[in-house]
């Protein structure tokens, strides 16, 4: 009871600084200290956001962005977990793949945009590739480290029970390294969202990133800010969803 009240109190405390910033912003705007063409007030942005939602215009770009995000993120997780486990469990695959991973991993992925334009054209293939490239490495590295860091007792338990290699991977290695895999997935989540928006700005024909840049170029600044708010909400919602999923998937975390 008191714990809950304490947490509620802390939550309210955390609201103070954003509310304060919004108030200052609103007053500055109303007192004419800022240029309303470049920086509309929070209330004006809220009105634009409201219009966006009620008109249903939000659905198209949101679905577009969410689609690219989900496709890229899911692909990155599958590839990252797959290669991570392969490299951690086979010395041959480790020797084969480690140099390649270490060459590609440190490249700032936006630097590859021109290359991808050349080979894949300006469009969906480039955007998806970029998202996957950005999101795959944190998952890959933490999966690899998670599997390599498993307690030998766990693997020896499997060996003494005559468990096949495939079943060891699926029913022991994968669930046992899940906490580490999820830690990598959390990092990738943020990265993927950043790159989705960037990709849409550079090569998109629709989506929130495309919209934001398009509105900026046509001086519809209020709508532009409204879309940025949508983006903030989307990021927050994804993180929250991830927290819930993680708690459901690894309830033993930190307890065994």
């Amino acid at each position: 009871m008191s714990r809950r009240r304490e947490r509620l109190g802390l939550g309210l405390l955390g609201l103070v600084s954003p509310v304060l910033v919004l108030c200052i912003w609103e007053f500055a705007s109303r007192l004419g200290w800022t240029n309303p063409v470049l920086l509309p007030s929070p209330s004006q942005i809220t009105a634009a956001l409201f219009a966006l939602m009620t008109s249903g215009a939000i659905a198209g770009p949101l679905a577009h962005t969410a689609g690219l995000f989900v496709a890229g993120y899911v692909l990155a997780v599958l590839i990252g977990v797959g290669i991570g486990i392969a490299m951690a469990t086979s010395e041959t695959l480790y020797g084969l793949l480690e140099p390649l991973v270490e060459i590609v991993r440190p490249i700032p992925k936006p630097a590859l945009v021109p290359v991808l334009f050349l080979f894949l054209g300006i469009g969906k293939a480039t955007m998806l590739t970029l998202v996957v490239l950005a999101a795959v490495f944190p998952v890959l590295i933490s999966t690899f480290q998670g599997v390599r860091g498993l307690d030998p007792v766990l693997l020896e338990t499997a060996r003494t029970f005559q468990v096949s290699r495939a079943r060891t991977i699926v029913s022991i290695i994968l669930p046992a390294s899940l906490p580490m895999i999820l830690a990598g997935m959390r990092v990738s989540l943020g990265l993927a969202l950043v790159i989705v928006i960037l990709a849409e700005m550079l090569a998109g024909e629709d989506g929130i990133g495309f919209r934001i840049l398009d509105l900026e170029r046509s001086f519809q600044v209020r709508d532009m800010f409204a879309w940025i708010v949508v983006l903030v909400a989307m990021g927050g919602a994804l993180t929250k969803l991830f927290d819930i999923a993680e708690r459901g998937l690894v309830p033993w975390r930190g307890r065994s």
Partner: protein
Amino acid sequence: MSQRLGFDRVTKVFEGSGNDADFVAFDDITLEAAPSEFLAVVGPSGCGKSTLLRMAAGLTDPTRGKVVLDGKPVREPPPGVIYLFQQYAKSLFAWRTVIDNVMFPVEGAPRARRGELRAQCRDYLRQVGLDGFEDKYPWQLSGGMQQRVAIARALAADPQVLLLDEPFSAVDALTRMELQTLMLQLWERRKFTAILVTHDVEEAIFLADRVAVLGARPTSLKEVIDVGLPRPRDQLTTREDPRFLKLRHHITASLLARNDGHVASA
């Protein structure tokens, strides 16, 4: 049927890395557990007792000599030889419920037998005193209960040889006695061959038919002692038996590398 497991002139050398010299863990050990025998191996901490069991389980190979299971040399973990780890918490699967942990060894069985096997595993849990804990997770249980889950899982694997690697050393004294009694009950019921390594002299005498005493590094076999205490054994009366006390004295003295007479006259 339980099986005969023996060490035939086993030597284990750990190669030193870099400038470190090679380390001889065992030198020329010959020891055999007869079918359905309860054999205990005691030795000072750090003498590599666990390595002996790991070789028996096929988890690591001897450098010279061989481990023999019913006449066949052991290289890979053989079926029916089950290892009970000291670190039960690491050996259990945290993401599985208690019953699913116990089911693990039999999951390869045909689907049609699933129901029957599940009932059997529930019975194993009942035998180790975990009735009603089927759907809990290991991390929701106490240490002693977790080791009980590991024991039930070992039973599910139908052990011919059970290797016990200080399995009761990480729990409190009272729980340890309960688990020892439980282990004896299960052993008398199932008649598997049991090899226990421990540094606890009383535990070795209380449980085993014979106690093998290991010497200092490089570890060699000092002596093998017939316990000869009546069964079933009891935590109170067995431990008060004059023969128990005599054996305890003898083995402890041997481990302390003093001779009996010297200790007696002290």
